[in-house]
């Protein structure tokens, strides 16, 4: 241990003596690892967002198409769907978009069915809706901010039936969702099922869709086939398929970006090759000196190993830390657009740090190991020469 510490001390001194070159190689490694790490981290964070969003999705969403256009689903099929083996619960949901002139934007109205209670945990101010509570609502932070309201205030919304039949509904705000759930709640207003029907003009006996929960999500395909027989024009969205589609899209985009980074990696490898296959005159001479004063080949190689390892681990670690800061602190400017796949996103997505430690470690090791291995070859060649020969530049 004491010997290794002394050799590490020597290696640090050697790096310091060649600080310009050491810094350049470290920076090059950090840059490449940082670029690859950014793609990995961003992909992981987006996959985590998708997973987090999917947690609140029903196993199956049953919508209905009439003449190729979305139509309301009659709720009299709920009982029949519930009777399908493997179906645990069915909720007829009422939701839709409502234009709010003061903020010139559409908001999402959602009739409470009870399932939203899980979302309420993210509430930052106020309370959640009580079952069947009329004239009250919970809304997203961005929406509350845009309207300029807070819990305790009332908000007026015009129903979506148009013309002289449109009526104004006053809803008391009882809670506001936290920013952390902004991606799913920013423009959402949850109110009672009855108030939602009034606002959206959805008659009793109809629903926007059916949220189906399954005992075994793996049986989604079988359940879908049976539901399709019960609901005419059914379009069934399978949560697993949706999740897989997102994953494939993100993996595809991530792969494409990684492929685009290959030239940078190739350039670095060339630099590393040039740096490592030939020792500089000063390095070769230094190895000769060490041999001449009685260092063994293994001791010379260990010192060189520490030198390479310190550079490689330093560069790779800096790269990983830089990638973390770039993705999660700076929100990946420039790269995010390529992976998000949309040109504008509302609300702004704040990525939650998600790092696969094994992946980050694999990235560091994957860069550091070849770097160290390649670096040992010329050092071994110089160290196995007679000291006199090495000193005279024979390596």
């Amino acid at each position: 241990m004491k010997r290794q510490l002394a050799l590490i001390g020597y290696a640090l001194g050697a790096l310091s003596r060649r600080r310009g070159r050491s810094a350049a190689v470290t920076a090059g490694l950090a840059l490449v690892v940082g670029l690859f790490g950014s793609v990995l981290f961003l992909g992981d964070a987006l996959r985590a967002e998708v997973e987090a969003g999917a947690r609140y999705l029903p196993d199956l969403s049953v919508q209905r198409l009439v003449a190729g256009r979305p139509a309301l689903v009659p709720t009299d099929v709920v009982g029949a769907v519930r009777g399908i083996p493997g179906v645990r619960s069915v909720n007829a949901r009422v939701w839709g978009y409502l234009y709010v002139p003061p903020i010139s934007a559409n908001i999402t109205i959602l009739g409470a069915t009870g399932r939203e209670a899980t979302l309420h945990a993210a509430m930052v101010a106020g309370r959640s809706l009580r079952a069947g509570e009329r004239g009250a609502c919970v809304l997203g932070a961005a929406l509350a901010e845009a309207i300029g309201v807070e819990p305790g205030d009332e908000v007026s919304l015009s129903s979506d039936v148009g013309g002289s039949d449109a009526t104004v509904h006053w809803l008391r705000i009882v809670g506001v969702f936290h920013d952390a759930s902004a991606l799913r709640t920013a423009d959402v207003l949850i109110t009672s099922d009855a108030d939602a029907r009034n606002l959206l003009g959805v008659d009793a006996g109809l629903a926007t869709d059916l949220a189906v929960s399954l005992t075994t999500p793996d049986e989604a395909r079988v359940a879908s086939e049976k539901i399709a027989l019960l609901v005419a024009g059914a379009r069934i969205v399978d949560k697993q398929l949706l999740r897989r589609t997102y994953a494939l899209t993100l993996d595809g985009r991530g792969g494409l970006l990684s492929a685009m980074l290959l030239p940078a990696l190739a350039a670095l490898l060339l630099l590393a090759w040039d740096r490592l296959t030939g020792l500089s005159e000063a390095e070769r001479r230094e190895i000769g000196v060490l041999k001449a004063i009685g260092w063994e080949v293994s001791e010379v190689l260990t010192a060189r190993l520490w030198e390479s390892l310190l550079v490689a681990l330093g560069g790779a670690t800096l790269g990983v830390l830089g990638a973390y800061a770039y993705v999660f602190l700076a929100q990946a400017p420039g790269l995010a657009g390529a992976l998000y796949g949309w040109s504008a996103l509302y609300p702004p997505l704040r990525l939650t740090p998600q790092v696969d430690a094994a992946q980050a470690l694999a990235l560091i090791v994957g860069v550091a190991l070849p770097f160290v291995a390649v670096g040992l070859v010329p050092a071994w060649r110089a160290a196995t020469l007679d000291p006199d020969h090495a000193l005279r530049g024979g390596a």
Partner: protein
Amino acid sequence: MSIEKESPAPTAAPAIDARGLTKRYEDGVRRREVVSDVSVVVPQGALWVLRGPSGSGKTTLLGLLGAMVTPTRGEVIVCGEPLSRLRDHHRTRARRRLVGFVFQELALVPGMTLTENVLLPLVPEGGATNAQRAHAAALLERFGLTAFADTRIERLSGGERQRGAVARALVLSPPVLLLDEPTAHLDAARVLEVVAMLAALRDEGRTIVATTHDPRLADSASVDRVLDLADGKLVEN
């Protein structure tokens, strides 16, 4: 000024026993014999000089005597240790313990301080102990280098570097000290200092062999014996 006088433990064997040493270099189709069948026995506590013109093979022979160069033929035994027969690992360890070497170009590491250079042979042993640091400091004091202990090598004069190289060669207290052209590029006053230093080290019991083509060293009364070398062979004198 305190004088460091650490004498190596005497043994019955000669300090250096070289038998039939030959060194041949091959470079593609060209083959060159730099040292041819040299045998020499250097007793303990002697100050010997290898003299010869440039290209006569002095440096290579010195390297062979100190197991710094692997002989093509022959063997060298230092203080009873058959260095040329040992595997590289054992040979290096034995050399570290038995032989101090001072190169003509001094082989100090630029960018390091004088103290760091002097302590460099101790790094593979886990770094210097307090006693070894004190020994190194005493060596620097002995050679008048205390003021330059923390000075980088490139800021030292030629004479200071040379004394620093000798200090480094002695930091592990080896019984044998080999020096390649120790008076090259030195003025007359400095040559006298070097001769006095070598004589003092010899008087402490060390065995010293130095190469030179400088008559100021070779002809010095302090030198016990001069071996002349020409075309890689010893010449009777």
